[in-house]
């Protein structure tokens, strides 16, 4: 697992950071001077003297042979050695470096607020009530540093729409700066019960934007229990319908746990009947972070024991011509006929394998592996898949 918010080991020259510095990492020592003020130079032994004019200089290892120039010469700690050309970082006065954007990652997440109007029993990113408006401001500032070959950005929270006007500004900025980048918004959809809000999103006319909206049950009270909010089911459904009225792409996200697995087939039927217009349904395994860990005993169920319900749901949805995908499941616990729906979805910086995976031909290949948080509990039925002879 990569640490995206680590502290650098030391400063080799004085720091000049009146406010946190956002910079794009480059290892090009010939970068035109005019651009150096926005860039952090990553020294990899590519030059005999350090170029001047960069906002910061990063060293991967203590190469004492070269003389630092200017301010903000920083020695990375070993866990930051993955930082590479094209990444966008924020350097804080206390030497903490946040990696905002990793060019090599298949998707980058933009956490725009930790506030949320739901309080899901298995939330991996528990909401915090305090004002964190600075987060979305930081993102709006950072977008121009990202290279426009970036395939996808995920806007997440908390509940991103709680950022209000800034939420729309962020999407507008991404569309303008990164016109070829897909946007995936993870929202509970409740605020889109307002037709006006759905319309406002559509008016940005983003060509490749999808909203991932969780729906946990076909029964209102069960969904409301999972998200711990009365009325949430109605708001989410109304939001989905409003967004679709304005032609937005929608992914339904169902996290499978003890409170949701039993009615998976009924939920699939409900979606097929009422929401057949959605673009995708993602059936997701639990990530044991945050509240999921606090409520682990109450919500845990071994994925091996809900395969029947999962298979029925997949069959109902795919028969209804709805694209269905399975996320966060190890291939070996899925019924063989479900494996073709599985996506290697766990972000590379969170992905791990277990000792039981030793000798499995799918580990690191087609199997998405485990969240690193799975160390707290995982299926008892992990068995290596062997080559067919």
């Amino acid at each position, binding site marked *: 697992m990569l640490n995206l918010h680590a502290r650098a080991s030391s400063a080799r020259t004085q720091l000049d950071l009146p406010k946190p510095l956002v910079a794009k990492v480059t290892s090009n020592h010939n970068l035109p001077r005019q651009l150096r003020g926005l860039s952090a130079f990553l020294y990899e032994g590519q030059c005999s003297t350090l170029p001047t004019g960069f906002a910061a200089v990063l060293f991967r290892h203590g190469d004492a042979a070269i003389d630092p120039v200017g301010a903000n010469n920083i020695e990375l700690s070993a866990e930051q050695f993955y930082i590479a050309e094209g990444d966008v970082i924020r350097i804080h006065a206390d030497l903490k470096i946040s990696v905002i954007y990793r060019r090599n990652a298949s998707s980058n997440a933009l956490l725009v607020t930790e506030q949320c109007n739901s309080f899901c029993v298995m939330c991996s990113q528990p909401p915090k009530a305090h004002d964190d408006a600075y987060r979305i401001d930081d993102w709006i500032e950072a977008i121009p540093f990202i290279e426009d070959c970036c395939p996808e950005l995920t806007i997440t929270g908390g509940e991103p729409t709680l950022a209000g006007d800034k939420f729309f500004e962020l999407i507008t900025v991404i569309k303008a700066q990164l016109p070829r980048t897909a946007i995936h918004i993870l929202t509970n959809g409740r605020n889109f019960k307002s037709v006006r809000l759905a319309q406002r999103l559509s008016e940005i006319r983003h060509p490749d934007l999808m909203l991932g909206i969780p729906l946990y049950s076909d029964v209102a009270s069960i969904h409301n229990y999972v998200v711990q909010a*009365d009325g949430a089911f109605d708001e989410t459904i109304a939001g989905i319908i409003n967004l679709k009225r304005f032609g937005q792409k929608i992914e339904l996200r169902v996290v499978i746990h003890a409170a949701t697995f039993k009615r998976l087939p009924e939920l699939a039927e409900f979606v097929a009947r*009422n929401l057949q217009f959605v673009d995708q349904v993602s059936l997701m395994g639990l990530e044991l972070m945050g509240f999921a860990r606090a409520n682990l005993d109450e919500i845990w169920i071994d994925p091996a024991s809900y395969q029947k319900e999962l298979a029925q749901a997949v069959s109902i949805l795919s028969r209804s011509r709805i694209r269905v995908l399975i996320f966060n499941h190890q291939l070996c616990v899925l019924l063989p006929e479900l494996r073709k729906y599985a996506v290697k979805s766990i972000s590379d910086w969170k992905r791990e394998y277990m000792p039981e995976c030793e000798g499995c031909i799918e580990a690191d290949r087609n199997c998405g592996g485990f969240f690193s948080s799975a160390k707290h509990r995982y299926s008892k039925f992990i068995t290596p898949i062997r080559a067919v002879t």
Partner: protein
Amino acid sequence: MLSRRFKDLSHYRQAEQLGYKLLPMRFSYLDENRYVLSNMVGEYLVLRRDCIEDIVEHRIQVSSTLYDDLKSKHFIYDESSQIAIPLLGLKYRTKLTQASHFTGLHMFVVTLRCDYSCPYCQVSRQTDDKIAYDMSQETADRALDMVFLSPNPAIKIEFQGGETLLNFPLIQYIVEHAEKRNKTHQRDLKFVIATNLSFCTDAILDYCSLHGISISTSLDGPEALHNKNRPRPGKNGHQLVVEGIKRIQRRLGKDCVSALMTSTLDSLSQAREIIDEYVALQLNEIFLRPMSPYGFAVRTGQIDKYNTARWLEFFKEGLAHILELNKNGYPIREIYSTIVLRKMLSPQEPGYVDLRSPAGAAIAGIVYNYDGNVYASDEARMLAEMMDDKFKLGNLHTDSYEAMLSNDELMDAIESSVTVSCPSCTDCAFLPYCGSDPVYHYATQHDVVGNKALSNFCTKNMGIFRHLISLMEDDPVSRNILRHWAS
């Protein structure tokens, strides 16, 4: 237990304790022990009678699986959610949306001439040397005017006869002129030729390939049965149609040809043989059809030779054989069942002209006869051949589109036969799967609504609905196959 900051499920179930309200629902018996309960968009549950009484008397236990199922399928709602009504509205609009598209199927009777002399012919074909029974180019032009006046974004032009290929030059004329007009109209335009394939040549097939025309033909079963049902001079009808089907499959592709069968008394004892004939031709679809009470079928008395109950037995025997074939690895669907299953199992409406309410007459499908007369349906034209012009909307050479489609007889028939307001239909659990056929009921009972207790349309459809639901309830393997058909 959840950690202290969370409330448990019972808290969120409290609103359900305040009692539930009923949404519109209908129920009908399925068999001695069971009832079908359906909502206004065709979602259904099969339940015992006492269970239905419990629902209606508000005795269903909150939090039970049945309670959740009834809520999920929009039979009841309670204080925990108000979304059922807007969702039902959305689904109801979806089911009805085709009515607003207006006429999509345009049937051109390019000739009444035919080389066959089928005793069950619903039309009154003419021997094939009378040019007087061919449609003219002028008439075709006027018909194309009508076609493109329909607002439907998807237009299907179907060539009917007689034997259509006896007037193939006119088909070419219509196809090319329709394509030309469509350059500005930009509809999703499709063509189908209904033909017995007697005169099907490679040149015709190449033309079909070039213009994306598909072929619909008639195959009644094995050679002896086919030739008896569908007599032709030379007694080689079966051989011609089989060769034709194979040729089309080879030259145009498997999906470009489909076949229909019509049941005579002789057919009823040969369900398996008929279906096996389709399998031998590697066809993946078969349409099991009873005879229609029009044209020669009535005049020759063919229609009276068996009743609907007997035909349903044949249908069930055939369907059982088709399901068996599927179980054994050969995918073949029965078309009528597929249409009905789509109505039962999907939020969409398959748009089959004969199972719609409001009725499909003229507003879903319309017929342009060789002589320029316009009829509300194929059956209406057949009725007219029996000297009853009730559903003749007018003539292409004398009447306007507006006048023909606002024809009083037509409007009255459509309006008074809407199923939700028809006696018997209004209380029937199968209403969402059924449709209205005013022409049929007028032809058989001289009343566009008709007494459904005496209606073979009703008997046939109820029998099929009950049978399909029973199969899905009682046999998991059949259920999977039937659900697959609906997808």
